[in-house]
């Protein structure tokens, strides 16, 4: 089948606008044009390297989505994007995207269900179509699709995201229905105000940035959180051993968390990563993996006092069962930075002993030989 291009869809929209005020039929045609633009964007997204290919994770997310939206689940296609930071969004053609960075920040299955359910409501109640229609008039389909695909420079994209912001009434409607669906699906509705409050707190600490694109499109303030708290209080908390689904969420994501954290740090939004790691470590203070990544944050940031702090964190991490073997490599690199040659040599030798097939083996061996030179 030959699909009209984005340009054709845009041309259709422009023609509609030039034709005068849109009546109901024209509005429906506009939505059809947007759906085509979204289909085009989806095809590009699927072909890109930005979608995480993980059938096991996809199946888990789909189960949660279907639990929260019920029999209309088949209307949606879900994509996990290989991007840091918190964002999730619905498109006018039934796509729901969620970033790896959001999965890293969610604490339990109830929060995941909340986010997916919230986006599904925006789609089902035609908020998305209204929003994209408005944004298309403001910025054009090209800018819209570029932003949706995460391909625009961040400053430019923030402007487009502002045009893609849901109204307070849309959010209120999605919140009310979202709470009801959360409770009906057997999740604790109190996780809704908890999640939004945590995002708002993170924004207060780091300000507007691509790390919290979700809040650019979903305006949130203290009043909204108060309304969510009041709404949740009117609903029953399910009677179960784990009404938030924390254990299930951890089981589905634990194996992937290290790679997600590594990617998050590589984005070098250190303030946001520090808040994230502090929160995760508060819940799991004994985790060697989290201690290691807290050290990595300081090694990569390399600010005043960071090298010493990184070494202290690596030392705490070593010997714990879930600590990555790279802790020895990082210990060696930071010790070298501080001029502690003996400690560096011990750590790098341990790294090679424990990771005999490491891709940087030859270079580390060379570094060890260099330490023996006078």
């Amino acid at each position, binding site marked *: 089948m030959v699909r009209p291009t984005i340009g054709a869809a845009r041309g259709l929209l422009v023609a509609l606008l030039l034709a005068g005020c849109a009546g109901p039929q024209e509005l429906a045609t506009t939505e059809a044009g947007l759906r085509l633009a979204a289909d085009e964007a989806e095809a590009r997204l699927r072909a890109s*390297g930005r979608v995480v290919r993980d059938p096991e994770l996809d199946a888990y997310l789909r189960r949660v989505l279907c639990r929260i939206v019920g029999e209309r689940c088949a209307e949606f296609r879900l994509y996990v994007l290989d991007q840091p930071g918190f964002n999730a969004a619905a498109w006018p053609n039934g796509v729901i995207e969620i970033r790896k960075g959001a999965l890293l920040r969610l604490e339990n299955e109830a929060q995941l269900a909340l986010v997916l359910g919230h986006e599904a409501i925006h789609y089902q109640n035609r908020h998305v179509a209204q929003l994209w229609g408005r944004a298309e008039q403001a910025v054009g389909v090209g800018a819209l699709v570029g932003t949706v695909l995460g*391909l625009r420079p*961040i400053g430019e994209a923030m402007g487009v995201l502002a045009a893609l912001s849901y109204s307070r009434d849309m959010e209120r409607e999605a919140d009310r229905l979202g709470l009801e669906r959360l409770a009906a699906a057997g999740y604790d509705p109190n996780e809704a105000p908890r999640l939004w409050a945590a995002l708002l707190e993170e924004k207060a600490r780091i300000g507007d940035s691509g790390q919290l694109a979700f809040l650019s499109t979903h305006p949130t303030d203290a009043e909204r959180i108060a309304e969510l708290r009041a709404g949740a209080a009117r609903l029953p908390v399910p009677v179960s051993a784990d009404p938030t689904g924390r254990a299930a969420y951890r089981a589905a994501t634990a194996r992937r968390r290290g790679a997600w954290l590594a990617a998050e740090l590589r984005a070098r939004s250190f303030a946001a990563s520090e808040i994230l790691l502090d929160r995760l470590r508060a819940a799991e203070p004994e985790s060697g993996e989290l201690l290691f990544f807290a050290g990595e944050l300081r090694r990569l940031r390399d600010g005043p006092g960071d090298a010493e702090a990184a070494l202290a964190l690596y030392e705490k991490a070593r010997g714990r069962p879930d600590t990555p073997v790279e802790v020895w*490599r990082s210990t060696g690199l930071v010790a070298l*930075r501080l001029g502690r040659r003996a400690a560096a040599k011990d750590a790098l030798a341990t790294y090679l002993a424990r990771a005999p097939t490491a891709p*940087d083996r030859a*270079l580390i061996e060379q570094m060890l030989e260099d330490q023996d030179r006078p």
Partner: protein
Amino acid sequence: MRKLPLFLVLVALLAGCELGPQGPVLVSPGPVAAGRLAVQTDVAWTQMPSKPPRRLWTVYGPLLDLVVLVDGLEEGQQLFSSEASAGTPVAFRAAATGAELGEFVLDSLRREGASAVSLDSLRPVAFAGGEGVRAEFRLRDDRGVAKRGFAVARVIDGRLFMILFVAAEDHYFPSLAPAVERIVESARIV
């Protein structure tokens, strides 16, 4: 007018390229002085407009193959000059170890939108008359095209000299890698 494919723009930015009025120029086979980095090439390249200390060469177009010659990047400078990402820039540290240079190259590529970036090997090599480091890697560009590449680098007097090659894994990498290897072998600092 149809916009330039995004990755083309990205690649141009990636090499610090200024899309100004000057067009591409032919680099003929023979000796070439890229600033202090002198090399010998036995194939012809197209040099795209570029901003020192970076030079950008391609045979089939930057969507398919790309060589970046870096002639003395200074402390605190970025390898590529795009501002496409939020967060702290990936800056060159003159005191970086070879292992950290490898991280610098890969993080710079990630920051420009490459995904699934993985390190195949990182090892010491002779480069431009001294001890350098070589990183071999794989990635996917933003159109999902699988690519392979390598970077050979050396720090001299606090400045980074480097030759980076990245090309589509199918056909273009194996086709051009031998020519780039010969450029790397010929490199010297003048």
